[in-house]
């Protein structure tokens, strides 16, 4: 049985257009799944539906066998955390340590235990020297790391990243992606990441493509990116190696899909063969 099962889900903010229009797919335990699609394709709505922040209009979502609904949401939230896009709008405490404590307070963790937990998880995200810092003195990347620490402190096994790196500078993006890859490396944590970052998608186990609220593709990232035309049709970026392959194909030089180094090696072989 899959950890998360999404079955024929519909959601609409208003009557004219359906934000999520009959989407079904499964997510296996321990997988790193990326969800891509242009803005307005329904990615964030889907994340909110899985996290129970919006109720499905029809269809069902189950997490670990429990249906996401009002009765089960408290239980589901104990194992699911979500990191949002805007670093400022999820910083609730007035300092780093207060923000990490926020979730622990909600979970009614005894206050004597909090200090140790805060120290452990701030260290995990590399912010143990910043515990007293206020949000306005932190960079965007640091704020996102605080958000991640606050969520990890509640020991979830499902993490949702809703464009968590899109508002960060290159340094912040790199920091957060490194953290995500480290978390994904273990078997126990399932990661669902909504992203525009092709490099990140290529790191994931599975890729879901949404378009206009519908499931457009669901496959291994390499397979998804192999069909450049299909991606362009729905306004998505094509990986650089795929662009190279196309550019040479136009000049009647056929290359196989590979990473950048592999592409250049193929060109070298082509040169010595001719």
């Amino acid at each position, binding site marked *: 049985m899959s950890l998360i099962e999404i079955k024929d889900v519909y959601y609409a903010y208003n009557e004219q257009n359906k934000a999520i229009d009959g989407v079904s797919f499964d997510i296996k335990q321990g997988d790193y799944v990326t969800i891509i699609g242009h*803005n307005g394709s329904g990615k964030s709505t889907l994340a909110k539906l899985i996290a129970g922040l919006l109720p499905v209009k029809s269809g069902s979502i189950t997490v670990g066998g429990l249906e996401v609904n009002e009765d089960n949401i408290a239980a589901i939230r104990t194992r699911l955390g979500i990191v949002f896009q805007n670093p400022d709008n999820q910083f609730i405490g007035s300092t780093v340590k207060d923000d990490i404590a926020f979730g622990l307070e909600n979970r009614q963790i005894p206050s004597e235990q909090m200090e140790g937990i805060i120290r452990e998880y701030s260290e995990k995200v590399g912010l143990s020297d910043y515990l007293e810092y206020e949000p306005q003195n932190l960079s*965007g990347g640091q704020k996102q790391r605080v958000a991640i620490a606050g969520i990890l402190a509640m020991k979830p096994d499902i993490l949702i990243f809703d464009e968590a790196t899109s*508002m960060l500078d290159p*340094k912040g993006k790199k920091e957060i992606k490194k953290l995500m890859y480290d978390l994904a490396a273990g078997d126990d944590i399932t990661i669902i990441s909504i992203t*525009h970052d092709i490099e990140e998608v290529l790191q994931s186990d599975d890729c879901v493509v949404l378009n206009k609220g519908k499931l457009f593709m669901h496959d291994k990232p390499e397979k998804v990116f192999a069909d450049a035309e299909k991606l362009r049709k729905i*306004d*998505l970026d094509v990986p650089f190696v795929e662009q190279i392959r196309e550019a040479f194909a136009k000049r009647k030089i056929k290359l196989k899909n590979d990473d950048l180094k592999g592409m250049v090696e193929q*060109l*070298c072989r*082509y040169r010595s063969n001719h």
Partner: protein
Amino acid sequence: MPISFKSLSYIYNKGMPYAHKALDDINLDIKEGVITAIIGETGSGKSTLVEHLNALLLPDEGSLEILDYNIVAGQKQKFLKPLRKDVGLVFQFSEYQLFEETVLKDVAFGPLNFGVFPDEALKMAAEALKLVNIDESYFDVSPLELSGGQKRRVAIAGIIACDPKIIVLDEPTAGLDPHGSKEIIDLFISLNKRLHKTIIIVSHDNEMVYNYCDETVVLSHGKIRYHGSTFELFSNKELLKEYNLLEPQIVTFRNLLQDNGFKLSDEARTLDSITEEIGRQLK
């Protein structure tokens, strides 16, 4: 030179114990009719530099010539309005400046402030909206009902409508999806090529800077480290290392090809021109 910084310095919290020199003896000439990128890490002084272009900040030392205006440290400025009309500044997440009831009215807001008569202002607004590809059917819609990418384009139209000679864009593609970003990039290229506007872009996106900007300025700790051809900067490994810059994908590809004995001229800067030259060598 339309813009010329002369030994300009700016200090935040001047006279306080935590004073901080955000710009330190800047000497910089920006060429007319060119797309210039300003890059550097967060906190390097990019935004401070840009806010000087519109006299939102005034220099503490040195001076700044923009078009026919001369801003000198310590002197009172009298020509704020005409300067701000001639230099259009598009802020980061510019969609947050929209406030009027309709898209058309919001775009006309700038021209009206600069003393254009209402009829004329609406005409200028309609033209600017056409330029940014916003369909006429949206003119009477509330800006709040648009998508993120559309809002951003309406905000940029609000600046274009003032008919500035210089347009400065701070992180114009931040937070947009690839398609939305492409629309903004196409827009500033057409402003530059077709309407011959001088464009300055502040960005973290080295791929975009490499692909579309003629010149690049590298700022770090309030000082200018590099100003010159974008290609020469990004194709120079030592410079990239020195300034801690990410190498654009095309440059990585170019370098790999050259390391493997392929010959590439300096003109082969885009994927298309690179494949063209390689293709010739393989035939």
